[in-house]
């Protein structure tokens, strides 16, 4: 966190607490039925090859009143599913996902941009093959709803990485360096134990 000039840490903390008063941060646990990442990459400049990771696991905390948020997601890289066992096996190799050595990828972010009460952009750090790089995810859609007595928030986010930044270099440049990530998430506010 960047410190405000001339403000002591205690004063800063108090200021933050005061700013957050009345706007409670709420945590949402990702719903495994509606939380996936699709990758899309251009093959020989001709058609898009795609595949799916997930369900992705994680927690999102939103303080929509204060315009703040935090997210931490885990992605099982060996679970990549293109619908083709041969393609899945190829993707898990050391020159692509390196799933044996790096079974998980991560996205951690604390920099949220809101438009009104909607999340518009989430900027954080993506870790793949043990390499961490900045990643910005733009919301193409975001909404919250009441669902079975609890609140569900979610949306569609899009980001782009250069796979070479992470050392995933197989078949460059015939299969493009630029990989599009389409992130579908729905987070469910845990219901209080009614027993």
């Amino acid at each position, binding site marked *: 966190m960047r410190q405000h000039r001339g403000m002591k840490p205690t004063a800063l903390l108090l200021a933050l607490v005061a700013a957050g008063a009345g706007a409670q941060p709420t945590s949402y646990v990702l719903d495994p039925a509606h939380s996936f990442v699709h990758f899309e990459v251009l093959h020989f400049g*001709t*058609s898009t*090859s*795609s595949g799916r990771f*997930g369900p992705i696991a994680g927690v999102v905390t939103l303080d929509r009143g204060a315009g703040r948020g935090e997210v931490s997601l885990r992605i099982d890289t060996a679970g990549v599913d293109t619908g083709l066992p041969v393609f899945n096996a190829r993707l898990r190799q050391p020159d692509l996902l390196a799933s044996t050595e790096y079974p998980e990828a991560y996205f951690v972010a604390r920099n949220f941009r809101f438009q009104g009460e909607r999340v518009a952009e989430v900027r954080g750090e993506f870790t793949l093959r043990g390499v961490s790089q900045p990643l910005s995810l733009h919301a193409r859609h975001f909404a919250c709803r009441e669902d079975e007595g609890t609140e*569900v928030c979610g949306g569609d986010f899009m980001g782009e990485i250069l796979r070479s930044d992470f050392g995933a270099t197989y078949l460059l440049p015939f299969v493009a360096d630029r990989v599009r990530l389409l992130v*579908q998430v729905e987070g469910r506010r845990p219901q209080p134990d009614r027993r």
Partner: protein
Amino acid sequence: MNRLIAAAACAATLASAQAEGGNYAIDPTHTFVSVEVMHFGTSTQRVRFDRKEGRVQFDRTSRSGRVEITIDMASVNSGVAPFDSHLRSKDILDVAEHPTATFVGSRFSFVGDRVTEVAGTLTMRGKTHPVALKATRFNCYLNPIFKREVCGGDFEAVIQRSLWGVDDGLPAVAPDNVRLLVQVEAIKQ
């Protein structure tokens, strides 16, 4: 008997000679057929059909073509096993009664050498309706592994699922309009 084989071989040669533009077989390892559906107005669920096959006849000179893709509806794959079972059930795709869906496209539009649209019909759940797949990209290249020409692209269409009797969860859970995505490559035979 030998004469019959010779005749068949002759006919096959003749047939391939007539299709000057060429016959292409869909490459299942670079073909992805998916449907995107908005879930409760919140997030987009992408559902893929993993088994498909098909053939394309395509002639850039005469600007004509024909494509036929058959999709094994039981191969539906959302990443959520209970949802896949629900999708296969009578309520939605009714896979037991209608195991395949077929797209037949016979009206190709071109700009220059590039296909921009393939219009035809989609048969699903025993019902046939027109569908026009628009190309968001199209290209042909010489594949260095097969040493053959490969043509392909990304196509999409918005279809109204209720036309095919797929009306479960309308309109709250999922809207009537769904996005059909066909990312396809076909190898010259």
